């Protein structure tokens, strides 16, 4: 049997390096980012976790944020693509193959971060299998990711072969949503954490993950493959994004209101901290949500250009949101007393990512773009490749 029987490679693989202007910029950026990533990895190999600014009080850093970003993006993208098949949404079909593949690649980019976030990845694989712990959200991620990947891959291979499998697309959709729900649960199930515990993060992750998929879809449609027929799909998703962004904004409002109402300790400090952060207002709210919402509602009904631009900001906003959530669940110290005479009383725990953390986390974006480029070059992704 040939590899081609399983992986739908193009008949004539041709790596086209004649980029458009935008393409050149993106290519240059991704090369720089990959260089950045390698710098981070070398630093990590040299110094281990000392290269990170994580501490006893703030063990999760930017890498967790970056990883969560890619995972949510991945699962959201897969959810949209598999929905297109399962619910037979014609407008989205032209991009389905691409979205299935890109969803998987986003997950791989996430793993490229996770590999250096987790202390012992090999041990993880071995002992998740040998002594997995079902009460752990992290364990279920280890179950759901492979299943999502498997069914997404099958869906894609069958789709390339002209078969729209309801069963596999449904399984992929279910496990993608399970994954993202579980990722949100990692925060939502921190029972002692007054701010994180509850249903907020699970739902926020699903909504923002799918929103991320929409943004990615729009960007690909506009900047990579400028074909007229994709625009219909974008316009459809634009409508969906109004609902999702509105939902997110309402959730934020309710969450923050609930936290400041009565100045509940363990919550109100976090809201105060978040509100004092320009990153939250500028990136997460204004650029990430309000601007896309504005464009989606009042922008051109025919042209997708503006919304696609807004999608770029949307993704930046989502990355910012992931940074904010990881920070928000950790900034209130668990140790409220001093443990040595010469220290300030514990207040908000501050954390700034180290250069290595920035390098690996942001560098993975370069890896993601590079993977997209390779996929474009070698895989059957367009309509002409199908059937």
């Amino acid at each position, binding site marked *: 049997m040939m590899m081609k029987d399983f992986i739908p490679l193009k008949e004539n693989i041709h790596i086209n390096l004649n980029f458009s202007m935008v393409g050149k910029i993106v290519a240059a950026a991704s090369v720089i980012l990959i260089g950045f990533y390698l710098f981070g990895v070398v630093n990590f190999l040299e110094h*281990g*976790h*000392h290269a990170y600014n*994580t*501490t*006893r*009080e703030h*063990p*999760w850093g930017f890498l967790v944020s970056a990883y969560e970003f890619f995972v949510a993006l991945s699962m959201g993208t897969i959810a949209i693509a598999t929905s297109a098949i399962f619910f037979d949404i014609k407008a989205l079909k032209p991009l389905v193959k691409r979205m299935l593949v890109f969803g998987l690649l986003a997950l791989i980019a996430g793993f490229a971060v996770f590999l250096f976030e*987790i*202390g*012992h*990845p090999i*041990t*993880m694989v071995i*002992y*998740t299998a040998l*002594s*997995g*712990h079902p*009460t*752990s*959200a*992290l*364990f279920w991620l*280890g179950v759901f990711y492979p299943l999502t990947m498997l069914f997404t891959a099958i869906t894609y291979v069958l789709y390339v072969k002209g078969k729209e499998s309801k069963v596999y697309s449904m399984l992929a959709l279910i496990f993608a949503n399970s994954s993202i729900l579980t990722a949100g649960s*990692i925060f939502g*199930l*921190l*029972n*002692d*954490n007054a701010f994180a515990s509850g249903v907020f993060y699970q739902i926020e992750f699903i909504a923002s993950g799918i929103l991320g998929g929409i943004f990615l879809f729009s960007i690909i449609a506009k900047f990579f493959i400028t074909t007229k027929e994709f625009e219909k799909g974008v316009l459809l998703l634009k409508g969906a994004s109004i609902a999702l962004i509105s939902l997110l904004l309402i959730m934020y409002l309710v969450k923050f209101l609930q936290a400041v109402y009565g100045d509940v300790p363990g919550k109100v400090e976090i809201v105060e901290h978040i509100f004092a952060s320009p990153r939250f207002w500028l990136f997460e709210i204004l650029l990430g949500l309000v601007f896309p919402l504005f464009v989606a509602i009042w922008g051109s009904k025919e042209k997708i250009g503006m919304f696609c631009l807004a999608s770029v900001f949307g993704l930046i906003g989502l990355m910012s949101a992931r940074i904010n959530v990881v920070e928000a*669940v*950790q900034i209130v*110290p*668990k*140790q*409220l*007393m*001093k*443990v*040595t*005479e010469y220290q300030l*009383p514990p207040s908000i725990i501050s954390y700034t990512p180290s250069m290595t953390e920035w390098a690996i986390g942001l560098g993975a974006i370069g890896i993601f773009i590079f993977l997209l480029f390779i996929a474009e070059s070698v895989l059957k992704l367009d309509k002409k490749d199908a059937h």
Partner: protein
Amino acid sequence: MARYGMALDYKNCINCRACEVACKEENGVELGAEKHRIWVGSNNPDGEWPNLSLSSAVFLPSQCQHCEEAPCQEVCPTNATYYNDDGIVLVDSDKCILCTYCMNACPYDARYVDERTMTVDKCTFCSDTRLARGETTTACQATCPTKVRTFGDLDDPNSEISQLLENREHFSLKAHLGTKPKLFYLR
């Protein structure tokens, strides 16, 4: 099989931190201020000099609570954190993947990363040192100048700790979380 716990007569504590050093020396805990299995909490007294509130100046020795419903154990994906036969919460460093989920899940800040093994470390109630040699006290209890701690079997009604808990009022930290801590602070 026992159910080990610890009672702390915390009003005796003078914040000398003998317990912290005894713990480090006994158990080979990594050097470094952040690398402590046990600690003494203190706070700045309320008020302005010379009118400072004496009752607000408290010393609260603490460590892993060895919860019966330990959140750290619940979130551990590989079962690296486990309960031994005596109900002591331990970390099997061979299984630990350093996801640090437990550090975020623990309500008591009782865990830290041992950078020699790059795994999560915590109080063991001296189970692999003193208890393994047949001793009946932990290092922190034995060394304490004012004898804050009493370690023992909660299932044995005749143990000193059972007697103390029967006769003295006590409280646990963050009991509302339902973690069922086995550290008891005597009033």
